[in-house]
């Protein structure tokens, strides 16, 4: 209860056998990724992602976070190893996973409504139904009233909300988010983080969040996977136990929150120096 918020903390990545007993929605086994025959981006990644949890991938720039997330999404093929979602090996993108892009990846020629409904459009959902569902999620991410605007008429934070609504609208089990808040300013970012916590309570989905902000990882995650610099390996897994029900600003001042940030920073520091 007191200062012990590091409930699991391992120097190496070998997963304990007990882990598999927990409900893992995504299992990563022995993933290697080598780019162009020479650049080893990921080395022997073994991980489980628990259903309903928010897991952050945290690590220095270039350590392979995006690479790992894209492999999980089925957008990239690993050089070796296997990813299983709900027990089925991943060979490409699937309906149970949705991606939120760092640069938003919105179609500039389409309105907010059409962008948010795009995933459904590709699946052949009728216009009426997909617009209805898109409207629901646009409202849920706090963008109602902007349905007919084009992306260039929105701020960066609002654009990312569209990206989030699009991912939510296809009703995937897992949301893969690649630094979703990195292109927005600090105030927007905090607001966004608070909204994400609220959204998790409504949506009951599994979230995978890539970030290189320690504060963000600690504030949001049930579990933080720390990756080492290239070649990316799992350096440590940290499980923050922070009560997020209270006032957001108060959370950011609790000793648990601040201590954990210091601890992770101390761990990462060895790579930077």
């Amino acid at each position, binding site marked *: 209860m007191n200062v012990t918020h590091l409930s699991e903390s391992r120097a190496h990545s070998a997963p304990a056998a007990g882990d598999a007993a927990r409900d893992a929605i995504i299992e990563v086994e022995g993933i290697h990724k080598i780019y162009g025959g020479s650049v080893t981006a990921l080395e022997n990644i073994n991980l489980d992602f628990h259903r309903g949890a928010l897991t952050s991938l945290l690590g220095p720039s270039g350590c392979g976070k995006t690479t790992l997330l894209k492999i999980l999404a089925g957008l990239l093929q690993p050089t070796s190893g296997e990813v299983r979602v709900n027990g089925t090996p991943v060979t490409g993108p699937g309906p149970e996973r949705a*991606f939120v892009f760092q640069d938003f990846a919105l179609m500039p020629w389409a309105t907010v409504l059409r962008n948010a409904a795009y995933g459904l459009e590709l699946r052949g959902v009728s216009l009426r139904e997909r617009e209805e569902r898109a409207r629901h999620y646009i409202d849920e991410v706090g963008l109602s009233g902007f349905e007919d605007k084009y992306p260039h008429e929105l701020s960066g934070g609002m654009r990312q909300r569209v990206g989030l609504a699009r991912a939510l609208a296809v009703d995937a089990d897992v949301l893969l988010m690649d630094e979703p808040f990195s292109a927005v300013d600090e105030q927007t970012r905090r607001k966004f983080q608070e909204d994400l916590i609220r959204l998790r309570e409504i949506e009951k989905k599994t979230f995978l969040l890539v970030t290189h902000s320690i504060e963000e990882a600690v504030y949001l995650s049930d579990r933080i996977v720390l990756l080492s610099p290239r070649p990316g390996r799992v350096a440590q897994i940290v499980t923050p136990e922070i009560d997020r029900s209270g006032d957001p600003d108060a959370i950011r001042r609790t000793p648990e929150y601040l201590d954990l940030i210091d601890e992770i920073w101390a761990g990462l520091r060895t790579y930077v120096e």
Partner: protein
Amino acid sequence: MASTTQTNAAEGPVAGLTSRWASAAADTPAIWKILSLALIFGAWEIAGRTNFNYAFPGFLETMAALWEMIADGSMGAAYLRTAEPLVLGLVISLAIGVSSGVAMGLRRDVEWLTLPIFITMQAAPMAALIPLVTFVYGIGLASKVLAVVMLSLPVIAINSYKAVRNVPSSLVDMSRSFMGSRRQQVFGIILPAASPMMFAGIRLGVAEGFSGAVLAELLITPTGIGDLITYNRSIAKFAHMYAAIFSIVALAVITVSLLHRLEVTLFRPEKRGV
């Protein structure tokens, strides 16, 4: 604003004067366009009146000649002749240029096979090849069509290719991550995303096609508008000669501006009314 910079960047070093002028013209408010035209025509009129060259008529004199040729039907008849190789050539260039450009952008093997041809075509001084074309295809319509194609095709193909290559990869990844088929990726994402740069190339290509048509009429056999220019020069009716030149420049600018409108209405709803 963003559209202006993007268009100019896309045109790059191959930018033709008419097209650049036209795309700039399409983006500026009407009052500026009128003001800029007034300035140019005013300067022209003054230059004409200084009599620095006996063969250089003023703006008003040229307009009078233009009106005369329109009224007596000679202008209309000339354009009917010129339109034939121009339209045929442009249709061929558009069809081949856009489709091969897109194919090169989408597929490495097509790129390897085809791109060098277009790069060579673009680098070669096409005007110098027109006599050769005449030698092979004679002085008929085929040669003139070919002249238009030779000038407009490479620009259209290369810009379409670059446009497809420059589509942000995250947009394609996005479509893929939501399980878009290849067809949905190409028609739903790649082509709309490539359309601004592709249309910049098309506008350049059309402007080049106008050059090709006139060059062919000046170098192969004088017909249509080329004939109006050469004939009036030979009988020293310089105002008429300039009127013919003016008319083709104006037509090229108008065509290119209309293309810009077409692009915005067809592909870029977000730029409507901006």
